[in-house]
């Protein structure tokens, strides 16, 4: 459906002639922006930035003079993160745990913001089979069948699936191995039933809404040759994410999908920070590495 829409819009745009125009946009006071993931058993690492005018071409603005207080659900202070570099703040001692709730108090730009987030529970990921298939009759795809376990049956759970490929790039006598996220294809209804997840194929979002049992067999596939370069390895990452992360990423991908459409005003992002833009999101991930 979106293809049709794009075709219609593009065919209208094909008539157009363009001209750069100057618009004097209003100046607004900068607002704090937070971005980061809370990963169990890893040091906390998040970034604080600032909003800026759309006509500001100096690059992203980061806030180094802020600090972050990390509390548990009973508001016991766990650690204070400070001394930001390029906006990054990292914990030195404390590592978050799965299935725990945390509160973050962020200071920056003379403002305070709060984030309340729970790190999701664990998940199991098991490779079942790999094969190749012809997608759309002509393109060779690599198919991965895997088993997703520890899915709660009577409780909502949210997941994200990503495929990162490793490919060779030859520059004269140099051979580079590069990594790149690729579109995740699937004919599994479970993976594609939620319309909100269709805006970014590189990060496939799903819920356990129509999963009736655990473990669940799923399959994804991706092209073997992309942009003329052969994939040598694939990393399948499945993340169990919090509800805030599911809402945030789905709204972000929808926003980005329509961001350059002049006839639409994209949706705002559903962040979980109160008093700031962006989000701090609980993520619990597992990965499978496959050499092709």
């Amino acid at each position, binding site marked *: *459906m979106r*293809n*049709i829409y794009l*075709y*219609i*819009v593009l*065919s*209208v745009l094909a008539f*157009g*002639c*363009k*001209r*750069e*125009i100057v*618009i004097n*946009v*209003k100046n*607004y006071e900068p*607002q704090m*922006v937070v*971005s*980061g*993931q809370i990963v169990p058993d890893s040091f906390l690492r998040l970034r604080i*930035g600032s*909003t*800026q*005018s*759309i*006509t500001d*071409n100096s690059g*992203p603005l980061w806030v180094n003079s802020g600090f972050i207080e990390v509390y548990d659900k009973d508001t016991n202070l766990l650690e204070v993160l400070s001394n930001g570099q390029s906006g990054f703040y990292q914990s030195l001692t404390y590592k978050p745990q799965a299935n725990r709730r945390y509160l973050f108090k962020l200071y920056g730009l003379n403002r305070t913001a709060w984030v309340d987030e729970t790190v999701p529970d664990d998940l199991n990921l098991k490779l079942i089979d790999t094969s190749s298939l012809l997608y759309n*009759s*002509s393109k060779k795809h690599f198919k991965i069948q895997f088993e997703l376990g520890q899915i709660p049956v009577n409780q909502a759970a949210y997941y*994200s699936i990503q495929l990162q490929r490793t490919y060779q790039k030859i520059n004269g006598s140099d051979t580079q191995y590069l990594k790149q*996220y690729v579109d995740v294809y699937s*004919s599994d209804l479970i993976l594609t039933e939620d319309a909100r997840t269709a805006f*970014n194929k*590189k*990060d496939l*979002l799903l819920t356990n809404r129509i999963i009736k049992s655990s473990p669940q067999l799923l399959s994804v596939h991706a092209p073997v040759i992309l942009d003329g370069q052969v994939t040598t390895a694939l990393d399948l990452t499945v*993340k169990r*994410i919090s509800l805030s*992360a599911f809402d945030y*990423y789905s709204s*972000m991908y929808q*926003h*980005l999908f*329509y*961001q*350059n*459409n*002049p*006839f*639409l*005003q*994209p*949706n705002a*992002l559903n962040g979980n920070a109160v008093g700031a*833009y*962006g989000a701090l999101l609980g993520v619990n991930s597992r990965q499978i590495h496959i050499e092709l």
Partner: protein
Amino acid sequence: MFRAIFCILIVFNCYLNAAAQSPLLEQRISLQVKQKSLSEILSQIESLSQVKFNYTDKVMPKGLYSVKFKNEALSIVLTQILQKHALTYALMYGQSIVILPLSKSDKRYTVSGYVTDDNTGEKLIGVTVLSRNGQQSTLSNQDGFYTLSLPADSVHLSFNLSAYKTQYASVFLTQNTALNIALKDDYTEYKYTYSYQLEPQSKLKTEGYHLSAKTLKQLPVLFGESDLMKGIQLLAGVNAGSDGTIGANVRGGSADQNLILLDDVPLYNPSHIYGFFSVFNSDVVKDVKLIKGGMNARYAGRLSSVIDVRSIDGNKKAIKAQLSLGLIASKLTIDGPIGKQKKTTFVASARRSYIDILRKGLSEIPTGTDINPFKSGYYFYDINAKIKHDFSHKHQLSLSYYLGQDIVFVKNNFTIKNDPFTIRQKDRQDVHWGNQLIALRDHHVINSRLSGLFSVANTTYRFGNQTSFDYSKTSDTSVIKIGSASYNNTYVNSLISQYHLEYALSPNSKLTSGINYTNHWFRNSNNYQDSINLKTISQSKNVFAHEFSAYMAFNTVVRQKLFVDAGCVAIQFFSEQQPYNSLQPRLNVQYKPFRKMTLHTAYQSTAQFLHMVSSNSIGLPIDVWLPSNKSLAPETSRQISGGFMLQFPKYSISIDAFNKRMNHLIELVSVGKQAIDISNEANQFSIGSGLAYGYECMIEKKAGKLNGWMSYTLSWNHRQFEGINQGQVFPYRYDRRHNLACLLNYVPNKKIEASAAWAMSSGARFTIPEQVYTVQNGNQQWEQIYLYSDRNNYQFPLYHRLDLTVTFKQYHAKYTSLLSIGAYNIYNQFNPFYIQSSINAQGNNMFEAVSLFPCIPSVFYKIQF
């Protein structure tokens, strides 16, 4: 005795002269007399004109009178001189006019009939029928029918319609009389000026603004296609949508709030080519009426306005054909009578664009390779047909049909031979949308006071998308075949049955009433078949809604000074077990304190039970109509307007003010959501309100070689929605503060017509992101996110453009040809269609404006035979 003799003479005259127009009475005289008897005044008129008066001295009043007329029609002079003395006149044979006393009888009779075009026999709408003593006037209705109740006496009627020569008729009423009149085109008389001889003091402001077929054909064109919606955009109170589109935002309303009727049946999507052309083929349009406020109670279902389009019935005299060749489309129209008695007429017209054919020709140029798989195209077509039968002058039956379709296709077919395999692939995607309408109308005059109109109609709008994919890989030893197919259809269908009655209560009062039942059917269906996974998914959802309505309206004219049209429409709408009732009062009052001035005020309450949900701001065909239900209340509106109109023989000036409040407006919160489900619960709507107010001014010149109009609107238009713009009031997208439009037609002779339309308005509103921030996505990559502060926070630059068209006509013995040359946006003004943020060559963020229509020349050729 004297009176009896004259009565006999005049009755005799009536039979011979009833329907005749009288050039004698049309002659213009200038007269200035001071303190003379009436006999002396009449003698002086005899010397100035070619008439002879017959009267007896007994009827002449005693006294001296002063009169002054400058270049006035003789009929007007006589009416004004004689009616003061309770006298009237009747035209006899030759150049004799009889003066006699007005009848003292209280008995009244009805004069009624049809007004037609003398050339084609086509019924004319909106013809002003005026009794020459100025006591009564009426307008011919949508069937060209008029009725006047007048005293049993000698009556003189004039029939006036812009671009037609005014006709006069004299009748001595001794019984109810049928009087059919044929108006002659000004050009057929080789008189190159428009006639406008109606007495300004007698004309009341008509309901709505009429654009006749002649006016529409004079409008400047885009790509050679004249378009009635582009003409409507030039009227006061109408705000055009985006550049080049046909959207009309009437008095602050949105485009979907216009009730667009084709022969009384609503059309859901009035546009072709994504909104750049209307579906109305100008060859079959007879009349268009725009009602912005004070609409009659017979109209219901939309909030803002009525655009009432009437199609032609077909030539009653001979079979005629028109072939038109434009830049993007061509059309053929044939109309004429059937049978010797010529009681049945037909019209058939077809139009098709040929962008795809031209493109196909270009794409089939050999490229040196066998594989040229990708083809895409776009075309639209429409068909209008109508057949009408006159059982008698009191009973007509017509059947009309319209079908319009837009089709976009993308196909990718190829065959590759790679031994030992042969690979064949067929991939096709079709998107089509359009309206289909069929209507049966039965108009019958029950008696001289009562007429009825029964109609049954079906109108459908359908948007569909079909994809198919077939692949085969064959060799001598193996065959692999796979394929898939899917379709998605969105469909709205309304089955309408209605009956209207019109009853003349008294000479000056009329009662109209009617009932209507409409069954709406909304359908959304999806089907997917896949031969790989052997999967078939089929879903469909049907929603039915029922709409019952009844209305009554009363209108009266008191001494030609006060006109009142009051009515009320009651509607019950029922959908998904949720009933909604609505009572909508309507009032339109006009008062003439002076001869040339009319004061008017109007109030209307409206409700809209069908909502168009738009996921974009340009009116693409994917917009979906939804019915009111439990979660979606009907949109409502109240509008009050008032103003005055000054009418002079050749000019009219009107100034209006309006205030319109709209409630329960809906807007899709989740913008960009394309597959809108007809089950409303699945959609995220925001409910809001709107306020529009402003002033309108229109100056019109209908007469002369140079005619046209100029309109100016000063207006404000706001919206307020929960969850949009933090709940704060924001300007509507088409909140154009100033709107100026000017249309000029110049007709130096019958072979050349020139037309210019200039439009200037404040820019439309748009929303741009003002801030950005950078965050990580789920793949740990950094993304720039736009921040929008206020909705519609910026304004396009001033919009203006000039369109010109010159038409050359050649009259031959057997055919007439017409060549039209013109240009849209002749001085190539850069009018942005949209603005987007982008990155320039230096890698810096910037804003980029895109204009779709630079100067576009057009050529159009038409042959009529």
